C-alpha cells in the first residue's frame, strides 16, 4: 500500500491528539551532503513527515524563498540523477517517516511517467504531488502512479467549488495538500485563508487527511490550522529561508532544528487555538 506510512503517522498522531508537522526542503539545497544532514536533523528535531522538492528551473508555483532554494541547489550542481540516491539515504535513515516528493510536471514527463514512478518506488518515496498538474491533466499521471504503488497527492486551493472538492477527495492518495492562500508559496505573518469549510467538505467526502501548506511560518499558524480541522501542516518557505539566511553549516542546522522544534511544539492541544497569539516558549528547549 503506497500510503501506509502516512496512515501509520496519522493514526499515531491522532492517539496523541497532535497535528503532523512536515517541513519542506529542496533536494540539494544548499549542497547534496549538507541537505541530507539538514533533513535528518529536522526528523530528529520532531518532524513527523517530509516534503522534498526536486529542483526545477521554472518553479511557477513557488514564491521568492523557494525559488532561491532551487537556485542554490541548481547552482551547487544538483542533478536529478543524484537526487535518487539522496532520497534512498533519507529513507534508510528514517524508515517510518512518510516522504512526499514535490515535482513539476516536466521532470516527470521528461523521464517518462512510468519510469519516474519506478524510481520513486525504488527510492522509498511514499507520495508525489505535481503543482502544475491540475485536475484537467491528471490523466497523464494517475494510472502509472496507481500501478506503480506510489501515492499521487493532490493540491486543493482555497475557494474550490464542491465539484473540485469531491474530485480531489476521491483521487488524492496519502494526504490532501490544502493551500492556505492564493498565489504561490511564501512565509506570511498571518494566515490568509480560512480553510475550515474546505476541510470539513473533504472529510464528508471521505478524503485522505489534509495537510495545510503555503504560508505556514509560525507556531500560531499551526494553532490556526488545528482549529480548521486539518491533520497537519507543511512549512516550506520558512524552512528554506533559514537555510539561505545563515553562512555556516552549523548555523543553518541550528536554525532549522530550532524552527522544527518550535513548530512541532505547537502541534498539540492548545488552550488558545482560536486566538493565534505568542507560542509557548517552553518548546524552544
Amino acid at each position, binding site marked *: 500500500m503506497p500510503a501506509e506510512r502516512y496512515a501509520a503517522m496519522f493514526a499515531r498522531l491522532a492517539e496523541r491528539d497532535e497535528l503532523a508537522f512536515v517541513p519542506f526542503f529542496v533536494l540539494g539545497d544548499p549542497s547534496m551532503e549538507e541537505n541530507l544532514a539538514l533533513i535528518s536533523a529536522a526528523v530528529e528535531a520532531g518532524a513527523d513527515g517530509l516534503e522534498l522538492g526536486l529542483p526545477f528551473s521554472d518553479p511557477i*508555483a513557488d514564491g521568492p524563498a523557494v525559488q532561491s532554494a532551487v537556485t542554490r541547489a541548481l547552482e551547487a550542481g544538483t542533478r536529478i540523477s543524484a537526487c535518487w540516491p539522496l532520497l534512498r539515504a533519507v529513507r534508510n535513515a528514517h524508515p517510518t517517516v512518510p516522504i512526499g516528493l514535490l515535482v513539476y510536471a516536466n521532470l516527470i514527463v521528461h523521464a517518462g511517467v512510468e519510469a519516474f514512478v519506478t524510481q520513486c518506488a525504488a527510492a522509498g518515496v511514499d507520495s508525489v504531488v505535481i503543482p502544475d498538474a491540475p485536475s484537467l491533466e491528471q490523466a497523464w499521471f494517475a494510472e502509472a502512479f496507481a500501478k506503480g504503488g506510489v501515492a499521487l497527492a493532490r493540491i486543493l486551493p482555497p475557494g474550490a467549488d464542491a465539484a473540485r472538492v469531491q474530485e480531489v477527495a476521491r483521487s488524492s492518495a496519502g494526504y490532501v495538500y490544502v493551500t492556505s492562500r492564493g498565489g504561490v508559496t511564501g512565509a506570511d505573518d498571518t494566515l490568509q485563508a480560512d480553510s475550515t469549510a474546505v476541510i470539513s467538505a473533504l472529510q464528508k467526502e471521505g478524503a485522505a487527511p489534509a495537510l495545510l501548506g503555503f504560508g505556514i511560518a509560525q507556531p500560531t499558524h499551526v494553532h490556526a490550522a488545528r482549529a480548521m480541522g486539518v491533520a497537519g501542516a507543511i512549512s516550506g518557505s520558512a524552512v528554506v529561508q533559514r537555510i539561505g539566511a545563515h553562512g555556516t553549516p552549523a548555523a543553518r542546522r541550528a536554525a532549522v532544528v530550532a524552527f522544527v522544534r518550535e513548530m512541532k511544539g505547537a502541534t498539540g492541544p492548545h488552550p488558545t487555538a482560536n486566538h493565534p497569539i505568542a507560542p509557548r516558549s517552553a518548546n524552544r528547549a
Partner: protein
Amino acid sequence: MIRSAYYGRFGGSFVPEILVPALESLEAAFLDAQADPTFVAELETLLRTYAGRETPLYQCRQLGRETDSRIWFKREDLLHGGAHKTNQALGQGLLAQRLGKTRLIAETGAGQHGVATALTGAVLGIPTRIYMGAADIERQQPNVQRMRLMGAEVVPVTQGGATLKAAINEALRDWSASYATTHYLLGTVAGPHPFPLIVREFQRVIGREARAQFLEATGRLPDAVVASVGGGSNAIGIFTDFIADAAVRLIGVEPAGEGLHTARHGATLQRGRPGVLHGCYTQILQDDEGQVQESHSISAGLDYPGVGPEHAQLQETGRAQYVGCTDAEAMAAFSLVARSEGIIPAVESAHAVAGALKLARTSDRPLDILVNLSGRGDKDLATVLRYQAEEAARGAANVVAAAGGIDAR
C-alpha cells in the same frame, strides 16, 4: 473546458489548480464574445480606426530581384504600436473588460508585447503592469520608455536568465494570486489553454487580409508563406487562413543564433524535445534531465526556449516546415531590407526575410513568397549598430590575422 486544449498531442493546461477556474471562465467569455456581434464590431472598429488595419500588402521592388522570385511583405510593421502584437492585445483587453477585470498584467521579451499591452491599458483605461527580464530591459530601452510613457508599470525580473522565460514565470505567479481582479494578457500562442486559441483567433486577421489581398493582386495564392517563430504568434496569425490551401508552403523561421551546432540558439522546434513549460506540453529546449535551458538570439522577441503547441503539431504533421536562420543571416537581411526597400524591419521579421531569400535563391522555379513583416525595427537600432560595430572590429582583426600580424590560433 468547452473546447479541446490539445493540438494533436500538444497543448493542455498545466497550471496550479487555483488557476483552473480563471482559465475556464476566460475560455467561456472568449467563445461568448466571438459569437457576440457587438464585441466583434467594437474590436473591428478599434483595429480600423485606432490601430490602422488593414495593413498593406507590398510587393518588394528591389529585394530578391537577383532571383526570378517575387517577395511580398504583409506590412504589420505599419500597425499602431509597431508590430502585430497590437491585434491581439486589443482583443484580450476587450475580453478583460467583458470579464470585469480591473487590472492587466503581461510579460514581454522584446518589449513589443509590453508596448501593445500598455497601449491597450491606456486606451481602455485599465491599470497595467508588465513583467520584463532585467537583461531585456537593458537591451530594449526604447520600448521600456514607451511602456512607461503610456502609464504602464514595468517590473524588472532578475530570476533565472532575467529574460522572457523568467518574466512569464513571474506573471503566472502574480496571476495565481490576483486572477479574481486581474487579466493575464499573455503575449503569444503558447501558455495554457485557452491562450493559444485566443491569441491565434485574434491574430489570424493577418492571414485573412493577406490571402484576400494576394488574390486580388495576382489572381492566385502565394507559393509559400514565411514568418519568424519565437513563441509563434505572428506565424500562426499569417498561417492559419492558408492551412487549408494545401499547395501553399508554410515556413517558420526559428532563431538559429550562433548556429544550430552550438548551444546558443532558440530553435525550439528543430532542437527541442517535448515537455511542459509555462502551462503547455510542447517542444522545449531542455537538458538531459528536463531542466529548461536558456535560449539565445540576437532578437529578444524570438529568444524563448518554448513554442506554441500548435506549431509543434504543424511540424509533426508536416503541414509546416521550420528552418533556422542565424544572427548573422538575420543581420544581413536586415541591412538588405533597409537599403533596398527603405524599410527598417524588426530583427524578428528580418529572420523571416532571411528565410524567404534563402528559399528564393535555392528554388529551381520562380516563386511568389509572402513574408510576414511582423514589426518595425526602431527598437532594434542599438542592437543593430552594436552588432555592425563588432562585425567591423572582427573583420579588421581577421584581416590582421590573415596577414600574420596576430597569432590566430
